[in-house]
């Protein structure tokens, strides 16, 4: 068994950098070279079995980092170890220990039944029969793939295909699973199904998961730890609560009243919008909404309530407002 202590780091990065030379046309013939630091000195470790959210705005260096962790790109400087393996030197050995799911790019075979794609994984990764049967059974049951196994992939819906892709990435018992936007484009039911599966699989198998996403609900329902990258640097590494606190992000309480009212002055929140009988109140994301609701219900004819969670981009941009 290669699974040892629960806290031994399975992902280790030390001072990792990635520098690109970008050539840009500046005239009909002239080109200038500029050096772009896509990843600028990142260090972190992830203990075995942890689920980590890796977030940041587009172009922040997220996908470059994931490409280095999976052996697609070699780092310009620094040290990476995945389960003790150097991705640069031992790409194929690493490939046997990781699973990767790209939300917008399927690895399944378009014209063939889903089962054929899994058979290829079994052979290419040399998955022992017993392990393959066990993993396939698990995925089929929990991802509800049974009726889809004999269906050509081109006939699957986006949600079905995503579930199929996740199963394909897990059949060889990877130590680390990388998920890039695993719920993008899915409906609410499919999203929660994928999340439930990942949470359960992680709890049971102890598979380490690194997740990049724009969907804050993915992070909230799966990750205890979040890393935020921007301009190639790690700007936050900690719990989700801390992220809200350090960024002073706000949630929005949307209240519908029985009739139109003047803007309400609510202690601990500020009124950010009045639209007929509907009023919106922003309050710090770290605080509970309960006292606000109680205060509103006590003094006003409240009909309905909802709370909007902050989007990741909001959280990050607020963080910047606070730190820089």
């Amino acid at each position, binding site marked *: 068994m290669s699974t040892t202590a629960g806290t031994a780091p399975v992902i280790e990065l030390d001072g990792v950098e990635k520098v690109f030379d970008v050539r840009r046309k500046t005239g009909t013939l002239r080109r200038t070279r500029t050096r772009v630091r896509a990843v600028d000195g990142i260090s972190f470790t992830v203990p075995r079995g942890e689920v980590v959210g890796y977030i940041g705005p587009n172009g922040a260096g997220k996908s470059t980092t994931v490409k280095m962790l*999976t052996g697609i790109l070699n780092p310009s400087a620094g040290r990476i170890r995945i389960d003790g393996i150097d991705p640069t030197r031992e790409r194929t050995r690493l490939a046997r220990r990781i699973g990767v799911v790209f939300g917008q790019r399927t690895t399944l075979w378009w014209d063939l039944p889903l089962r054929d794609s899994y058979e290829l994984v079994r052979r290419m990764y040399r998955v022992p029969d017993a392990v393959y049967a066990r993993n396939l059974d698990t995925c089929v049951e929990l991802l509800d793939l049974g009726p889809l196994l004999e269906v050509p992939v081109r006939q699957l819906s986006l949600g079905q295909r995503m579930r199929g892709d996740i199963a394909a990435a897990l059949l060889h018992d990877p130590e680390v699973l990388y998920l890039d936007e695993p719920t993008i484009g899915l409906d609410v039911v499919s999203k929660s199904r994928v999340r*439930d599966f990942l949470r*359960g699989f992680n709890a049971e198998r102890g598979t380490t998961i690194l997740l990049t996403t724009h969907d804050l609900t993915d992070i909230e329902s799966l990750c205890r730890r979040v890393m935020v990258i921007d301009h190639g640097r790690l700007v936050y590494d900690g719990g989700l609560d801390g992220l809200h606190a350090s960024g002073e992000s706000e949630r929005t309480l949307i209240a519908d009243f029985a009739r139109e009212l003047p803007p309400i002055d609510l202690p601990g929140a500020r009124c950010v919008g009045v639209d007929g009988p509907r009023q919106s109140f922003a309050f710090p994301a770290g605080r509970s909404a309960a006292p606000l609701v109680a205060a509103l219900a006590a003094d006003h004819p409240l009909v309905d309530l909802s709370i909007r969670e902050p989007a990741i981009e909001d959280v990050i941009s607020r963080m910047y407002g606070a730190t820089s």
Partner: protein
Amino acid sequence: MAELTPGEVAAALPAAAGRPEHQEPRWQPAEAMRAYALIVRMWVRSTMAYRTSFVLTALGNLAATGLDFLTIVLMFAHIHALGGFTLPEVALLYGATSTSFGIADLTLGSMDRLGRRVRDGTLDVLLLRPAPVLAQVAADRFALRRLGRITQGVLVLGWALLRVDVRWSPVNVALVPVMLVSGAVIFGAVYVAGAAFQFLAQDAAEVQSSVTYGGNTMLQYPPGIFARDLVRGVTFVVPLAFVNWLPALHVLGRPDPLGLPGWLDFASPAVALLCCLPAAAAWRAGLRAYRSTGS
């Protein structure tokens, strides 16, 4: 679909058995061949999902490649010899290069799609699999319809072998299969080198095809009809002359226009192996460049 709680998910999962010890790296060429065969099998099965289309394109491939030979036959409606070669003799050259090129085209012909994969980023998916990238790229979109070209080449070659006026000494008999295999390897090396170049210039596929397809067309004719410098170029720069010209000229008992030493007629296997070295080096360099620049 019913909602599942984490507890239910966990309960449904069998207790984690020990993870299997991962195999250590095996002998690379064998691993590469295995991965190649696995992926080719998937593409063949995908092709068979559209059986009619496959049959039509295979026949079209056969007919399209046959047009080249039809041109030569039409030329011989007016002449008895082209560049001093009779029709069966030209057919021997034609059949030999078409068969060799057909084998390379079938096994590696889809490598000219590498540039597109680099551009749209799908090459990354291949880098995530535990198999040599070269084998995966070579097997990518394997097109069984290209059997059409080989079939046509073999048919013409068979006809030529029956009709040429040659003394079939053991050496001549042995030289024919050696020529076909060496030729396929030389064309294969050109394909690999061309693909490696696409890491740098993603639109280079068509330039590569002017070497492969153009070279194949050139080799269908007797070397004597071309300008000396052109023949020197395909002998010493891109050694396509070793695909069929030199060994076939030996079989036909004719001198080569450059007056090269006789032993070079037997050098095709060695030249083929030598071609693989720069091709492999170019491939490694290309892949390394990709992994360091990602473009």
